[in-house]
């Protein structure tokens, strides 16, 4: 690309630097998979490129014996699914009303959505724990897990941004045809913002699936813990007693990481900088 005044050598150099960077970023993931398949942990350089005969799925069986991977995945799925459902239903409604409808309090509500992102979650964990776990008795309960994340404010702001971009005439025309607001939202607005919906779903999915601190505080029963929590407990408590602790930990890590990484690669074209940059704050 001569347009930006780079010599051929510079372009090649940039490509080399970026490729080395990408390898640094990807190597731990490669090593995660390799480590999870090794019979015995081999930390030598040669161990990073093992012979296929030395590989085994034994670590996956081992970690599954300690923490139930399926239960963990199901709990993570319910936690994430609940957040996604609430964010999509209530977030779309709020975003639509903020962008399209004219009502008193609209400005204040939008300001709140911005303000909420500045409040650090660490200040809220203690009072939220007291309220949700102690006062409402929602410890070891999906509702208690989902509640603090239920409606993602970033999503509300991105939805608003997208609904603002829908031409006003479309709404007016539909209203003249006698369509109610719910119908308008469902039939006119939503189909037009479908790409945004995918971006937001992807962005919101990452949050609860990877969240550790809150579900860790609120779940004590192993059968209720999302995979991130049960794997973390395994790392901090029992890893020392397993025959191949690293292998087992890495096998669990692969199971935890795989759904998000696969989803992300499949839908990566929706993970576009301009979409997220318009609304993202935290």
């Amino acid at each position, binding site marked *: 690309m001569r347009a930006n005044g780079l010599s051929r050598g510079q372009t090649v150099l*940039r*490509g080399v630097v*970026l490729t080395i960077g*990408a390898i640094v*970023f990807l190597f*731990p993931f490669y*090593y*995660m998979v390799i*480590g999870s398949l090794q019979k015995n942990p081999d*930390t*030598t*350089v040669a161990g*990073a490129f093992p012979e296929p005969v030395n590989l085994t799925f034994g670590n996956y069986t081992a970690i599954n014996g300690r923490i139930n991977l399926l239960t963990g995945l199901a709990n993570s799925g319910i936690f994430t699914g609940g957040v996604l459902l609430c964010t999509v239903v*209530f977030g779309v*409604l*709020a975003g*639509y009303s903020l962008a399209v*409808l*004219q*009502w*008193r*309090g*609209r400005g204040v509500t939008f300001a709140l959505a911005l303000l*909420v992102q500045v*409040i*650090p*979650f*660490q*200040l*809220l*964990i*203690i009072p*939220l724990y*007291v*309220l949700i776990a*102690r006062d*409402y*008795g929602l410890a070891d309960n999906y509702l208690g897990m989902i509640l603090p994340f239920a409606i993602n404010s970033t999503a*509300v702001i991105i939805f608003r941004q997208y609904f603002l971009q829908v031409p006003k005439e479309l709404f007016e025309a539909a209203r003249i045809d006698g369509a109610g607001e719910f119908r308008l939202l469902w039939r006119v607005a939503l189909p037009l913002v479908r790409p945004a919906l995918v971006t937001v779903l992807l962005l919101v999915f990452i949050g609860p699936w*990877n969240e*550790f*601190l809150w579900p860790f*505080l609120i779940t004590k029963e192993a059968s209720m813990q999302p995979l*991130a*929590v049960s794997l*973390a407990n395994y*790392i901090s408590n029992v890893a020392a007693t397993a025959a191949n602790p*690293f292998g087992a*930990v*890495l096998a*669990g*890590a692969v199971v935890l990481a795989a759904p998000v*990484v696969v989803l*992300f690669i499949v839908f*990566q*074209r929706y993970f576009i*900088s*301009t979409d*997220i*940059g318009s609304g993202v704050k935290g």
Partner: protein
Amino acid sequence: MSVTSASSAGVPLRRHPLHLRIFGKNPLGWLFSAPYLVFVLVIFAYPLVFAVYMSFFDYFFAAPGAQVDRPFVGLANYAQVFTDPKVIQSFGNVLVFLVINVPLTVVLSLLLATALNAVVHARTFLRVSYYVPYVTASVAVVGVWLFLFSGDGLVNRLLGPLAPSPSWLVNSHLAMPTIALFVTWKQLGFYILLYLAALQNVPTELYESAATDGAGRARSFFSVTVPGVRPATVLVLLLSTVIGANLFTEPYLLTGGGGPNGASASPVLVMYQQGIEQGHPGYAAAIGIVLVVFVLIIAFLQNRFAGGRD
């Protein structure tokens, strides 16, 4: 504002003047936003007030409905925050973390985003590689870092005689820098994404005129790109500071609960230990409030010096 736009749109106002005055042109807006407003009140506003309230009491946990004495202690919790060596140490640790993590994040993410923005071949592959750590759970990648940085892990094998002793995560001088490095690597993709968005808004004409004036690559990077993405830089500074102050998972897992000897304990980790494990939520709330004030001061200073006058 809603009334003027309503009348300009030619909607007959006379029918429901009172209800229009209270709810605006479209009261359905209230209904649509009501769940979100309730959520903000219950999850953010009330706990925020509750945190401040709790920090003035010797608060403790009780079964739902049980009446227990929770004496008012005034500023005692705050006095304890400023004298507790564990808390002071944790604030020092997070400062070390921020001093390493924040500048590294800003510089690396801007440089990588600029390079990625110009790249033509393998664009998708390169971007995806840089985003992947960001989308993956910390708990999962912590497992690999433990493996890589353990005493006889791959990193030390590669370093050979240069390997630090005691090893990275059990060395009181290196534990926090290693965590800072981990978080930089983990979060960088997100900031690259923000910078990539900001770079789209830098007008191409500026680069062209810089080139006409004979500016080289480095020169146009510093006099066009850096000022052009300044709003994004302010955002990256703020977000990386807030996320850094939120640090919990990494010291909890990478260094086994802030070890060695509290050298990598973060304030949120101390909050967890004090508030939940030892049952002093009032004290933990006070630590939280001091932490937030600490973050606000840093954010204010950053804004003052990096925000510019425009």
